[in-house]
């Protein structure tokens, strides 16, 4: 299987055209706001993303979910603009917009025809400094967020499994708390909580801006200076690391919810990328995830779903970058006549097989080609490119690291993959959550997650 070599050689030319990151620019304004620009001229559109280095992992007990609630309130008006006006102006300019909150960040974005960039920057700069959280708007929006929690989590059995698993897998690190927040905290949250969050974290020196598309970097820097440049920097709170200690034994839990099929989710404590040049294990884990589940011929589908018919679905996932600790996950739905326990054992068996026998040269090449081709395909979407730059930056790495990371992944050896499986993916450092499906009984509505039954 030597397919990969000519492909990789030819792609080196396609990807970098000599100078790596030649179309990438960055400037940091005097107030600490970094502006990152990637020029991509193939279509007359732009993506504009504002990243705040504040997410659910920065929350404290009692106000979980406030990062996300504030994200909602950011559409509810500023000193100069009434509620809804932000969205009205973006829409009238033909723009598309939204926002998302993670454990690591909160992100606001617009996509628009290129001439509309200044409007987007103007609007974001306004709400970076001038947000108004009125008690009336808050009282309505907190209900919307509670509906969002019911929709995304409470009525979704597999999401409940994930939420419970994270709460068990992490004892110390705030990744244990759900991004959307516990319902009890949403029910008692106040406008003052949202205002406090905004005052603490929303400052230009705790944010960065990513623009990708049909623009010149110099023009973006000028617009950024004109609108974001005047906002004052503020002292930021000290962030405590809250490091998760090594896990000293496996953990296990069961979630009961109305469903037909069982479900198994296993999380292993794992390292993430901190030093792009020196770290090795995160790259090996990324390749391992691809060997297990990077394409239709990967091991979990080929063996557990197709050949042995233990699973109806089986996946593996691992994020190389994160602000907090890493997690390597396996999950699956047992096939008819198979139990969750059998599937768990089969999933762990696949890791044991890698730890014992490693991976083949063909598998290794195939896994790497997915990454290389994926890099080409990503150029089809300016939004995907902007997201990639922002994710690196938000994880404490550099927006310039994309190509270096790809180089390192291409250099991973079969031995490194086997060693990573042996050292990291051990049962003692894992948590497994199982969905125990319950019959749907319409006469017994699910109790709300916090209030007593009534």
């Amino acid at each position: 299987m030597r397919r990969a070599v000519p492909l990789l050689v030819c792609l080196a030319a396609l990807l970098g055209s000599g100078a790596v990151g030649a179309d990438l620019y960055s400037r940091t304004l005097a107030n600490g706001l970094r502006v990152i620009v990637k020029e991509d001229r193939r279509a007359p559109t732009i993506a504009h993303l504002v990243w705040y280095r504040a997410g659910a992992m920065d929350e404290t007990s009692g106000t979980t979910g406030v990062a996300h609630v504030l994200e909602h309130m950011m559409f509810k008006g500023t000193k100069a603009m009434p509620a809804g006006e932000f969205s009205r102006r973006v829409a009238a300019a033909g723009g598309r917009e939204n926002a998302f909150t993670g454990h690591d960040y909160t992100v606001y974005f617009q996509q628009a025809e290129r001439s509309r960039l200044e409007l987007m920057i103007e609007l974001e700069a306004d709400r970076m400094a001038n947000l108004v959280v009125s008690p009336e708007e808050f009282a309505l929006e907190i209900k919307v967020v509670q509906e969002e929690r019911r929709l995304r989590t409470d009525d979704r059995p597999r999401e409940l499994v994930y939420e419970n698993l994270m709460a068990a897998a992490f004892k110390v690190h705030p990744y244990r708390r759900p991004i959307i927040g516990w319902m009890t905290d949403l029910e008692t949250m106040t406008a003052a909580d949202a205002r406090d969050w905004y005052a603490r974290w929303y400052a230009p020196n705790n944010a960065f801006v990513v623009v990708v598309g049909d623009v010149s970097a110099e023009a973006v820097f000028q617009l950024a200076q004109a609108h974001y440049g005047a906002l004052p920097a503020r002292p930021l709170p000290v962030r405590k690391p809250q490091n998760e200690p090594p896990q000293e034994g496996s953990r296990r839990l069961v979630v009961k919810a109305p469903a037909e099929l069982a479900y198994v989710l296993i999380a292993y404590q794992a390292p993430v990328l901190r030093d792009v040049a020196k770290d090795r294990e995160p790259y090996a884990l990324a390749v391992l995830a691809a060997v297990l589940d990077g394409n239709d011929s990967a091991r979990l589908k080929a063996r557990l779903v197709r050949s042995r018919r233990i699973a109806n679905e089986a996946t593996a996932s691992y994020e190389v970058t994160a602000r907090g600790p890493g997690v390597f996950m396996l999950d699956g739905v047992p096939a008819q006549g198979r139990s969750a326990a059998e599937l768990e054992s089969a999933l762990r068996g696949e890791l044991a097989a890698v730890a014992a026998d490693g991976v083949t040269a063909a598998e290794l090449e195939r896994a790497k080609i997915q990454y290389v081709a994926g890099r080409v395909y990503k150029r089809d979407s300016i939004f995907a490119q902007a997201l990639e730059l922002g994710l690196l930056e938000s994880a404490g790495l550099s927006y310039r690291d994309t190509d270096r990371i790809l180089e390192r992944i291409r250099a991973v050896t079969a031995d490194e993959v086997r060693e990573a499986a042996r050292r990291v993916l051990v049962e003692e450092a894992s948590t497994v959550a199982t969905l125990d499906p319950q019959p749907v009984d319409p006469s017994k509505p699910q109790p709300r997650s916090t209030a007593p039954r009534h």
Partner: protein
Amino acid sequence: MRAPLCFVAALGLAVPAHCLAQAAPAAVHWTTKSGARVQFIESRAVPMVDIAVDFAAGSAFDPPGKLGAAALAHALLKAGAGEWPEDALAAAFADVGAIPGGALDRDRASVRLRTLSSEGERGKALVALAAMLQRPAFPAAAFERERSRLAARLAEAETQPDQVADREFYAAIYGAHPYGRVATAATVMGVERADVERFYRDHYTADRAVVTILGDLSRADAGAVAEQLTASLRERGAGGELPLVQGPAHGGRIDVAHAAQQAHVLIGMPVLTRDDPDYFALTVGNYVLGGGGFVSRLTRDLRDTHGYAYSVYSYFFPLARPGPFQIGLQTRRDQADVAVARVRAVAAEFLANGPTEAELRDAKASLVGGFPLRIDSNRKLLNEWALIGFYRLPERWLADFPVRVERVTLADIRAAFAQRMALERFVTVVVGADQAR
């Protein structure tokens, strides 16, 4: 793809529709020897090629008593073909970084491929794709497995309130029409391998196919690719056309009990085909009612003013026969009735009076100004062209989109909504409301 003549855009003024129209790339059309229609859009910016092969082989073509045959035929295309066993076929794509994909809806069975455009990689991926499309083996073991997996997924769906609502809604608005029939775990277990083979023979034929090729290759290469993918398709089969839709004469409310914390609500009726003369009046109008995201009337009322729902929307899903107009939301189970009443009030007002002048102006500005975002990637262009090809829309459909939107008047919208829709014909499905018995 750029429109360098339209300097007015660079000045930050409104972008005139005719400028945007020039920005939409054109397709070259032809027919393969076997009779499949082909559309080719050259795009050299990124070294990759996207292909969509769409057949009139969606789930609405399931034979009576064999619901699930279309889904199984589609899923099993990659379960082995010609001399390729299933694993070898999967490896053939993976070895060159190609991504096979696809989707099935009521009208269409779509097979997709994204591949690098370099000749070695593209060539290998296309050989595998050609086998999948023209020589699928439907191996018995894979058939048993996929049938069991599909049955399990459908049994799971029957426990989830959003899926229950969807099933009930289609059944209610379409009755016995094929759009209203939905496969269940039980119907799928009644489908045999021979049924799938027959379904393939009848529906995966050249006369029911359209091939869309987009990306970094020449017209000549695209011609060879199209032949490679269709040369040994049967020219025609026994698959038929979909019957006309007899919409529900009157609406009504259907309640389904469920234990979920939220009630799931769907409201609507069959209305729109892809080639409908009212297409633009209805879709521009719907932008104001419930299609325009944060600025739509439904969102501003149900979400912003009342806090009833995280997601509330309306859309038209145009199909070969009139597809549904659908309003949807999810809300706490004890307030489902008041939320439904609000939706009906908002819809009634809109059906009676249409949008205001200002709303129409904003809707047009958004749809026309946002047009470049509809066509700024190969993925989006492929989706647009695959629809245009499949539904035999005019060649200039995409290029003319901004102009057609601009032409819509208030009177057009009012007339279209008044003639085509009526609140008393809307079916309301509510799954999991407290009042349900």
